[in-house]
């Protein structure tokens, strides 16, 4: 810690400006206080843990096989009661995702269908691991693809917060040698309220005063980040954006606040579970419909809240695999292969469903049962890393993956 002779409380309240002008400030003072700084490009990754049913999220209503495979859970064709919301004459959005339809129509939202892993695993655990390490089939990779992106680029500005995850633990995708900040809530440190909370924070600082070892440095960063987040204060979403209740809405709202605060965050990660719909998945209404409504409402609120700042943000969804093309005996779907992913943002060439459609005929299905994968998830991720974030070193971020103009989707303009 740099302020060895001064109490942090006095320091922060009394001599902040003077100390900053002398170059003595703690790291959080590096935070640009003005709004002139141009924010860099930002990637927000939303992981749908549990394997979302891509066929009911982005409905291939133009293929009749879809209806024969799913007699009780299929989403009706557009125009029918509870019907899909037409996207391009063949695919439609699940009706509970209506909040995203204007963004598709405005060319900000793209869909990548039949997307997934080249690995055949139907284990949630293995498939999530592969999607986060970015090395399908290889369990020996230590770090995540997002951390390798950070390793291969320089921070756009001095910050301790290049990457944040609104998750209790550092997710595998972010794990690695680059420092990342993960917390179940970025903005809520529960050390007691009022005076006792202040005393707790002061005591933590005193307990670690003068320590330069690993834990001392870590606590220093914790306090600096805490200072940053508490200084952000209250937050009212802009443009009338209304986030849905629940964790997902809160997480995206926190990310929106952090991004607008210009802290130097380049990558944000969040996750939402509940997609493993083996039983009573539902159709236009029901379990999956409720999950998708929250997802779409939260994404739409985020986009509305960010306003023009969305020009530099790409919000992308991912899920470890899809689900069986046919419904099972318990009104649900089992572990499958290909699924659908979404990209939302100003650099996205949206209004389009990307990827070759493999079809749902019995000979077209992967192993006779699942939507096939025609777009490797790395193609999608690599394109965002390269075209949106401007990192050319795809060979490091996604090792042993042939990426180039031939397999690019061109979904980032």
């Amino acid at each position: 810690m740099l302020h060895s002779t001064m109490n942090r409380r006095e320091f922060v309240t009394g001599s902040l400006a003077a100390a900053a002008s002398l170059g003595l400030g703690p790291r959080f003072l590096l935070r640009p206080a003005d709004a002139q700084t141009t924010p860099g490009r930002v990637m927000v990754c939303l992981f749908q843990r549990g394997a979302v049913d891509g066929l009911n999220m982005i409905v291939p209503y133009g293929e009749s096989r879809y209806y024969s495979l799913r007699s009780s859970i299929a989403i009706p064709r557009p125009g029918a009661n509870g019907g899909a919301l037409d996207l391009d004459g063949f695919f439609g959005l699940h009706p509970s995702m209506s909040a995203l339809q204007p963004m598709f129509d405005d060319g900000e939202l793209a869909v990548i269908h039949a997307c997934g892993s080249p690995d055949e695993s139907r284990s949630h655990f293995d498939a999530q691991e592969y999607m986060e390490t970015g090395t399908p089939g290889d369990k020996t990779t230590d770090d995540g693809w997002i951390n390798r992106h950070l390793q291969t680029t320089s921070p756009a500005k001095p910050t301790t917060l290049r990457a944040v995850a609104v998750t209790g633990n550092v997710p595998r995708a972010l794990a690695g040698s680059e420092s990342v900040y993960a917390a179940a809530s970025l903005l809520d440190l529960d050390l007691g309220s009022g005076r006792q909370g202040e005393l707790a924070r002061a005591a933590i600082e005193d307990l670690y005063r003068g320590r330069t070892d690993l834990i001392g440095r870590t606590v220093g960063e914790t306090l600096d980040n805490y200072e940053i987040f508490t200084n952000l204060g209250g937050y009212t979403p802009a443009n009338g954006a209304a986030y849905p209740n629940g964790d997902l809405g809160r997480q995206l709202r926190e990310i929106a606040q952090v991004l607008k605060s210009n802290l130097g965050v380049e990558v944000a990660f969040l996750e939402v579970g509940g997609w493993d719909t083996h039983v009573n998945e539902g159709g236009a209404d029901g379990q999956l419909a409720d999950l998708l409504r929250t997802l779409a409402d939260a994404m739409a609120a985020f986009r509305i809240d960010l306003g023009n700042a969305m020009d530099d943000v790409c919000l992308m969804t991912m899920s470890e695999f899809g689900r069986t093309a046919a419904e099972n005996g318990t009104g649900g779907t089992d572990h499958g292969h290909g699924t659908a992913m979404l990209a939302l943002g100003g650099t996205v060439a949206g209004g389009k469903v990307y990827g070759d459609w493999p079809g749902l005929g019995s000979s077209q299905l992967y192993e006779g049962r699942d939507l096939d994968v025609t777009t490797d998830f790395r193609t999608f991720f690599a394109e965002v890393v390269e075209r949106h974030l401007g990192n050319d070193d795809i060979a490091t971020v996604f090792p042993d993956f042939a990426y180039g103009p031939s397999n690019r989707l061109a979904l980032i303009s």
Partner: protein
Amino acid sequence: MMSTSLAQFALAVLLALPAPTSANEGPLGSMSSAAEDARVVHLLNRAAFGPTSELLEEVHRTGRAAWVGQQLNPASISDPELDQKLSIYPALTMNGSELLENYPQQNPRDGPMGIGPPQRIPVEVASANMTRSVHGKAQLREVMTDFWFNHFNVSAQDGPIRYAVVGYVRDAIRPNALGYFEDLLRATAESVAMLYYLDNYLSVAPGSRGGGSGINENYARELMELHTLGVDGGYSQGDVIEVARAFTGWSFVPPRSGTPTFAFFPQAHVGGAKTVLDTTIPAGGRSEGLQILHLLATHPSTARFLSHKILQRLVADDPPQSLVDRTAEVFLATGGHIGWTVASVLLSDQFYEPKYRSNKVKTPLELVASALRATAADVSLGVAASRLVGDLGQPQLRAGPPTGWPETGDEILSPGGMVTRFEFGFLAVTDRIEGARVDAALWEPIVAIWGTDGLAQYLLGQLPSDTTRAALSQAAADGAEPGLLAAMVLGSPEFQLQ
């Protein structure tokens, strides 16, 4: 395997043990007390899940060496109170068929659910491990059970491992945690959990019947890289292939046809002799695998690799080479006896050198268990405490990669994680962990009578640094409530480190 050399070694260790010391009986009288206090606390931070006031008293009475000696023979430690506490976890005593029957994998509409869904099983096992870590008397075995589970990691969120993890911990890991490494290695090699986790059950002779697609190298590679020789242990890709060929046919009887157990399928086995590490393994079906396990368990690279890893747990994130070499010698000389190897570390002078004290970050399990021990919590149900271990970053039994959870501080600590660590301290001292009752009214009288120094001593087993003492005393002067002060002790570097 008990050889004369082992007996001789055991005798030599026993003769070399320091005489039992007691705080008030040493030649230095009361002067030796603080120094001996610190040594006992250090021993209990590493060979146990932290001190409790009873255990501090006991080790002072018996002496450190006698306590370690008793810990080496966990079978002799009677612990009826623990047995009673564990009786609320029904899965622990069930075999595979009973688990399938009582924790069925089915739609609730299709029939009675028994005790619960299969995902409840690993929750019970993790909770029981928590109960043992906090209350068990065989502390060293529990520390090493945690160590070896992590070394031979499987992830209990993976389908069938939810069932197999019961037997894996109960029958493969814990009984061998302080025994011969080769027995432990074989028990894991023949376990349903490992055969599934590292895909060996899929590994079959190309073209053989049985559904598998051919040889799978996953287990063979990790067996040498992670379980025995270490990545620089001197094996080649050719060795990986040969070991994989030798282990074809090592599988299990499918769960649906009864109790899932290890089975060797000769028809899936690749015939012919194999060559591993320049040693010819004659064709012999299942015996090839056993010979290879013996070859690996007794290999000098394995002794070095395991010694380094054990020392990383017991001594330092970057243990000194001299200690690694000496520990590896003990490992080899004892025929790979884990208990004696560990004891040689715990009873060495080097172990107690000041530079090896408070030099390691507690893992999430160590933090939670030691906090519950320090606060004299009564864990009647370990579920919530176990969940906190996950919130702190290392969910029990659910490490994904075969490397298990990291052990070194640089991989454990993160700025966001520190927040959770501080928050955990509050939960622990304010009796807010369900199933782990703490007397939260205790802090007020302790502070009133003995001050913040007394509070720190109560929770840490010894007085902390001047910085910590000053911080606590300042907080008290500023009006911090006793519960906050107790939480700050748990948040202090002395408690976060060991």
